[in-house]
């Protein structure tokens, strides 16, 4: 845990770290899987282009009503293919899951119904919650379907950082922590620049004076380049009708004692998390609803796939429906069933293809949401954003919607550390809520007084998912991504698991586009062969 604090991990290395280490930096690295770590995203601007089908009627079976499956059914349908989605769950959407009053939370061994009040603002996004601007594929559908969007706040300086090992465990406003660390860091830099008559190579062509001015403005230093506190940290008192009194800066050593700088402090800098990110008004599943309203009669729920057989031409799929085995054939099959589950479903796939599915690890993520009878955080000058702690709950999210309403849903825990997720998943729902309250109380005194009820979703325990997403190791990506992405006969694996961006809907959409364009090519080739 200590070594990696001192080391910048590449995203690839970060993949390797998952499961090996705990702690906040490791936690953030692991989150790289969810695009949380700065990933060099080659913004792909092109949109899918499917030409109308001209080679006679074609059928497509789509396994799983995840975002990729829904995209496939919608696009292929528009192009003239006959599509049918087989979905094992009682609902469509897969990991795109918004929980509201009365919803069934299908956790293995821990089934529950959501106990939030019935109110359109009282929901939580158990899976995806935010979309960055460069995720142009998923946003393409939001635009096309006129899904109403709002900004989602990932970063709010008025939120807290709390670390049991720093400041006697007391929470500190992020604005104060950041102003002081920046101030001290700039002072240190300025001092070292001043101490040298001339900067050494490779900095020797830098204008020293400009660099000093940069330090001053970056850290809000005084005229002699020392840090004496800043109003960026917030005033101790006054500021409106009386002069503002600055807070006394915290000691740099104390600031470094906290783990905040090692990860969470830079969360808002990450490629996929930097402001502004957006989200559908009323819940992420508004995207699912928009697809479903365009796919009437094409989605078969509670259809659990039991067997997938490649035929000389096309594919045969067997599935359980109402306790009976059904069999259906199609020209093509797009499959977004999580690879770790597909590995256990009977098939006649090539061995190397199945080997990749087996090698993909189950990711672990847990979220706990709490209903507060009063929006106490607003009185504490917090309107949306995230507080961070080094306790298991890791984060507290304050809703970006419903400001000044009577009640609100907090995200009371969200961890990317698999070890934490193991601890949380081993608890009963009640224990999870109790733990979230006890730990949250270190950030907000009287926390428990405001919480009326809660719900939890541990993705590695959710029925038909058994994981939050595919975990590719660096070696596996190198050796086997192409194997899983390529079709075997008329069968394609899709989903964010077949993208370099697992953990983001963008990966799911683009994997479906990739497969559909490949199908189009197959059709094209067949037509050409017939013509010849």
């Amino acid at each position, binding site marked *: 845990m200590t070594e990696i604090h001192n080391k910048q991990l590449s995203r690839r290395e970060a993949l390797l770290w998952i499961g090996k280490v705990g702690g906040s930096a490791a936690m953030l690295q692991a989150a790289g899987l969810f695009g949380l770590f700065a990933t060099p995203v080659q913004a792909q601007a092109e949109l899918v282009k499917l030409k109308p089908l001209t080679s006679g009627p074609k059928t497509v079976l789509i396994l799983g009503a995840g975002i990729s499956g829904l995209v496939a059914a919608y696009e292929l349908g528009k192009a003239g293919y006959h599509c049918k989605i087989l979905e094992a769950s009682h609902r469509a959407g897969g990991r795109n899951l918004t929980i509201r009053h009365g919803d069934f939370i299908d956790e*293995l061994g821990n*089934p529950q119904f959501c106990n939030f009040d019935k109110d359109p603002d009282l929901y939580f996004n158990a899976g995806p919650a935010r979309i960055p601007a460069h995720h142009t594929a998923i946003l393409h559908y939001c635009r096309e379907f006129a899904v109403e969007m709002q900004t989602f706040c990932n970063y709010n300086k008025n939120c807290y950082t709390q670390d049991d090992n720093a400041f006697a465990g007391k929470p500190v406003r992020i604005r104060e922590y950041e102003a002081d660390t920046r101030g001290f860091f700039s002072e240190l830099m300025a001092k070292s620049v001043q101490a040298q008559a001339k900067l050494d190579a490779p900095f020797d062509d830098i204008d020293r004076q400009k660099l000093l001015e940069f330090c001053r403005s970056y850290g809000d230093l005084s005229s002699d380049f020392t840090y004496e506190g800043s109003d960026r940290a917030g005033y101790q008192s006054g500021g409106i009708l009386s002069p503002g009194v600055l807070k006394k800066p915290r000691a740099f050593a104390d600031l470094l004692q906290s783990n905040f700088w090692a990860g969470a402090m830079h969360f808002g800098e990450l490629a996929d998390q930097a402001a502004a990110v957006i989200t559908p008004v009323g819940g992420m599943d508004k995207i699912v609803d928009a697809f479903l309203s365009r796919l009437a009669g094409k989605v078969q729920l509670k259809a659990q796939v039991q067997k997938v057989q490649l035929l000389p031409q096309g594919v045969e799929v067997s599935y*359980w429906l109402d306790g009976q085995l059904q069999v259906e054939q199609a020209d093509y099959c797009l499959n977004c069933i999580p690879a770790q589950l597909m590995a*256990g479903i009977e098939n006649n796939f090539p061995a190397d293809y199945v080997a990749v599915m087996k090698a993909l690890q189950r990711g672990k993520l847990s979220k706990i949401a709490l209903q507060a009878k009063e929006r106490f955080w607003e009185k504490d000058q917090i309107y949306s954003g995230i507080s961070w702690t080094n306790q298991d709950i890791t984060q507290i999210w304050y809703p970006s919607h419903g400001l000044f309403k009577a009640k609100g849903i907090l995200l009371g825990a969200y961890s990317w550390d698999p070890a934490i997720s193991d601890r949380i998943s081993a608890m009963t*729902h009640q*224990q999870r809520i*109790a733990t979230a309250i*006890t730990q949250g109380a270190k950030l907000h005194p009287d926390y*428990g007084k405001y919480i009326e*009820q809660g719900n939890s979703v541990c993705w590695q325990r959710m029925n038909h998912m058994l994981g939050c997403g595919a975990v590719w190791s660096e070696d596996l990506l190198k050796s086997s991504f192409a194997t899983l992405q390529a079709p075997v006969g008329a069968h394609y694996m899709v989903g964010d698991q077949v993208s370099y961006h697992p953990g983001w809907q963008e990966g799911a959409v683009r994997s479906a586009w990739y497969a559909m364009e490949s199908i189009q090519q197959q059709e094209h080739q067949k037509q050409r062969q017939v013509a010849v």
Partner: protein
Amino acid sequence: MKDWILYCALFAVLFSATVQAETFHTDAQYCLVCHGSNAQGNEAISAPNLAILPDWYLSSQLQAFQSGWRGHQSTDAYSKEMMAVAQSMSPEDIKRAIGFIRGFQVSKTVEKVAGDVSQGKTLYQTCAACHGAAAEGNQTMGSPPLAGQYSWYLLRQLQAYRSGQRGSAEKDAAGALMKQIALSIKRDQDLTDLVAYITTLDIQKTNLQQTDIKK
């Protein structure tokens, strides 16, 4: 810790007033999500082969998970998952699940285990007394069949017995015996050799269906 218990008590009160989820799933297909579409197990989920296990053993293990003999002391997340599922099952669910599993053909995945098979065969002589010469199992001794089970699963169980995570529960007599045996295997290499030998064995055509599963 005190706080925690307090909150639990508080929530027990709060929650009793809210909707409690019934077992939503009446179908036994539930088992197949993890254990594979033919109950043959799934390495990617770390779920063992159930199809090779006789009714009496499935029943006894579901009860073991329900009562926390299995899973409770365990540090591995997999047995905790199974414990949660077992604890959500009613006696009818258990019966239905076992009946459903019996409907699948027994199958075995061919595995290559790096171990000394002949050394493993020698070591297996001790095991044969309870598990049978062909690792076909023995209900009277409470010993499950081993032939056809995955090597990684067998290995993990042997390690669990050795560390006392399995076989330490008061009422688990068969487990206590197995724990003693596992403790007598000192070297890790012996475990690997043993498992390598067991995976070479064919599944025996024994009657997996038993009427007296209540026993």
